[in-house]
């Protein structure tokens, strides 16, 4: 299992840069068969320029099904859950 602190990841970086790094971390862990857990404590926004370079890029490369059961969020706001679900629904 790989736990990633998103607030720390965003510190000092813009959203596209942070998304790129998250993509790299996710790819490495998922390749090894590790589940990825994103700790969202203190993070209030998931804008498209972050999602597109991270989760969106991963889905583009590997398909949405590859994330099923392998990606989870903890301490996430209800509104962010709605946005993540909406975001994922836009992929076939």
């Amino acid at each position: 299992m790989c736990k990633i602190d998103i607030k720390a990841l965003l510190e000092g970086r813009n959203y596209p840069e942070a998304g790129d790094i998250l993509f790299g971390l996710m790819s490495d862990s998922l390749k090894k068969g590790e589940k990825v857990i994103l700790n969202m404590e203190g993070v209030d926004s998931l804008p498209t320029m972050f999602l597109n370079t991270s989760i969106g890029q991963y889905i583009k490369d590997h398909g949405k099904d590859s994330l099923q059961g392998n990606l989870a969020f903890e301490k996430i706001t209800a509104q962010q859950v709605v946005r993540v679900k909406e975001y994922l629904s836009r992929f076939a």
Partner: protein
Amino acid sequence: MVDALKQEGAKVYIRSNKMGDYLYNELHFKDYFVDNKNFLPSHDESLLSLWRVKEDEIDLHPELIQQYLKRTFFSNKDLSAVKLSLLESYYNIFDHAEARNNAWSMMMYNEECHRLYVAVGDLGIGIPTSVKRVIPSLSDEEALLKAMEPTFTSMSRKHNRGLGLGYIKDACTEGDSLTIVSNHAKLVTTQDRTTTAPMPFLFRGTLIYYELTLTHFENEEIIDNFEI
């Protein structure tokens, strides 16, 4: 407009009348255009000031606005949609607009009806011009409609994949609206419908204007675990 004229070397005079005095004193036009300030705090708590949108502060301003609204009016509400809509607006400017750093935002909060009014404007190429680089056959009205589609993007930068304008629209709740004026077209969208109309003049740039009723937003709720 003042900034664009100044960039071209023109001298701009503001007449002393009700509107001129408001621009000069309340909105501090002198400080912005003579002293080159990017932001000045307002004496009026409901006026969230004029802000020159700069790429190196693109994440900072939305964060400050959200913090201010939570601290002053809504400590329990999840106002992330406010921050998100501003982030998407600002990133759109630097990703697509080619605005030569001439982009501004202004907000006002009406405490009686709990409504936040947001205007973000730039004097760049305009959304229809950007869209028509991908699909040249569209009219300006059709181009604005295209830009609202979730999967459409002009892919100006790697992190563009559409969705941005949709997030701004999603922040609007019942009774709210989003208006976009750009090039020869205007689009107005609410929860129920979207309409377009031709503009009688060419606007070289984009104005995004929307209203958010903050009491419609949910209270903040944290979920311990959510799995895909």
